[in-house]
């Protein structure tokens, strides 16, 4: 049977080309990371990861993600909601502005924080007098990560929120739902997959951000180094096997992120199907 459009060989060629590009660009780097990490054996890799400075970097990265992801999730949903549902003067500007962290180089973002909170910065002397440390300390790392990952959730949620429209939300209101009930029962279930994607992307970036964090962190081992910074330091010291060991761990986190999303999606579909069956069985 002849399909519509391209001939068979064109389709085969495109699929093969696509697979080759994906293998070289996506799979090969992962393979290299893991093979390098294990080049000196499993025990070496475990030792490199459990070394005190490395553990401190892992803890800091986890802390940053634990603070940044919930904050930007709440902000992202609230911002998406306001920007899609309300029409007001300056709305277009805000929509453009929310993308700023994506269009500004992360290094510049980091520089902005140094300029604001650094010793020579606008608020530097004030902070100094009150004994607050932001730059070259953990708060700076968290601030920079917050800035860089700000758009992920809002950007994922906004188009979907616009596409589903207001009718179902209005229906919920006329049926007596409060604004809160409307959000939890009607809006959130409709945007949950986009929201989850945004959260996972935000998480991946919060853990993996290099540029902005590098500028504000000061590279203090065991104190302000996140995993990507620790990898850089180890690379500069030609301790490649140790660098790749931590890189492998970071890559694992990315794979877990992707896996988690697949499982959640699969489980919710299953739950929906089971729920329907359960209802069918009832008298």
């Amino acid at each position, binding site marked *: 049977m002849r399909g519509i459009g391209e001939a068979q060989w064109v389709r085969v060629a495109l699929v093969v080309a696509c697979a080759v590009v994906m293998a070289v660009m996506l799979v090969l780097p992962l393979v290299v990371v893991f093979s390098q990490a294990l080049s000196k054996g499993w025990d070496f890799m475990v030792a490199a990861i459990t070394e005190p400075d490395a553990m401190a970097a892992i803890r800091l990265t986890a802390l940053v993600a634990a603070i940044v992801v919930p904050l930007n999730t709440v902000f992202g949903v609230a911002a998406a909601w306001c920007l899609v549902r309300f029409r007001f003067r300056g709305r277009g500007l805000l929509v453009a502005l929310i993308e700023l962290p994506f269009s500004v180089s992360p290094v510049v973002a980091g520089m902005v924080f140094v300029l604001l909170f650094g010793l020579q910065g606008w608020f530097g002397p004030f902070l100094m007098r009150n004994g607050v440390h932001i730059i070259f300390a953990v708060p700076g790392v968290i601030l920079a990560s917050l800035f860089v990952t700000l758009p992920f959730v809002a950007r994922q949620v906004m188009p979907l929120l616009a596409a589903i429209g207001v009718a179902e939300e209005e*229906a*919920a*209101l006329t*049926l*007596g*739902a409060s604004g809160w009930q409307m959000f939890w029962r009607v809006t959130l*279930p*409709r945007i949950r997959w986009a929201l989850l994607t945004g959260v996972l992307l935000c998480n991946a970036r919060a853990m993996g951000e290099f540029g902005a964090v590098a500028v504000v962190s000061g590279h203090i081992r065991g104190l302000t180094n996140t995993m990507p910074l620790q990898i850089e330091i180890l690379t500069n010291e030609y301790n490649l096997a140790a660098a790749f060991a931590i890189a492998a761990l970071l890559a694992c986190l990315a794979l877990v992120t992707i896996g988690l999303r697949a499982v959640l999606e699969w489980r919710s579909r299953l739950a929906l199907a089971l729920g329907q069956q359960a209802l069918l069985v009832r008298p």
Partner: protein
Amino acid sequence: MIRLRGVVKSFGPGRVLDGVDLDIAEGSFVALLGPSGSGKTTLLRLMAGLEQEDSGEITIAGQDARALKPGERKLGFVFQNYALFGHMTVFENIAFGLRVKKRGQRPSEVAIRATVERFLAMMQLEGLGPRLPGQLSGGQRQRVAFARALAVEPRILLLDEPFGALDREVRESLRVSLRKLHDDLGLTTVFVSHDEEEAHALADRVVTLDQGRIAQDSGAYEKA
């Protein structure tokens, strides 16, 4: 039952309603007729509390509507494209209005189940409770929308072009059941239509809007 005085509403520079006075008596069945852009849907949405009037006043059952949220007006609203909750089963759609009631007023699970089953039967939807709205025909979706709006026992039923998306046969049969529902439940019904024949066939009173004003009112004598 519903009383509008000098109601004005604009969207941006365009004035959609330009001073509307209207009294809708309890138990009446009123059709709002008019070309698109005449303001009939806006008028309905104002009654439901989904829009806020710029000036003028609306009272519902003697109460100033401004103090009432959409959910407090004891009304059921049937949307043009039904606006069923796509991620909920038909059963949960109909139960929604009961489940979101405040703790003290919320019926028990058994009572909710009984109410939903009663409305499923009333709307000839038996056995469709576990389905998702996406798995239903247009006529069935329409009946779910009616059941969902009626399950909270409203006094007023507002319908925005309820039969617009349906084919002729389904439309005729739903018209009959709507009229029967109105009479049986003692509702006050307002429905928006652009189909003159439908409006006259169904309603006791036809109010025609044009450019944000009432151009014609078959029940004008009722005001006296």
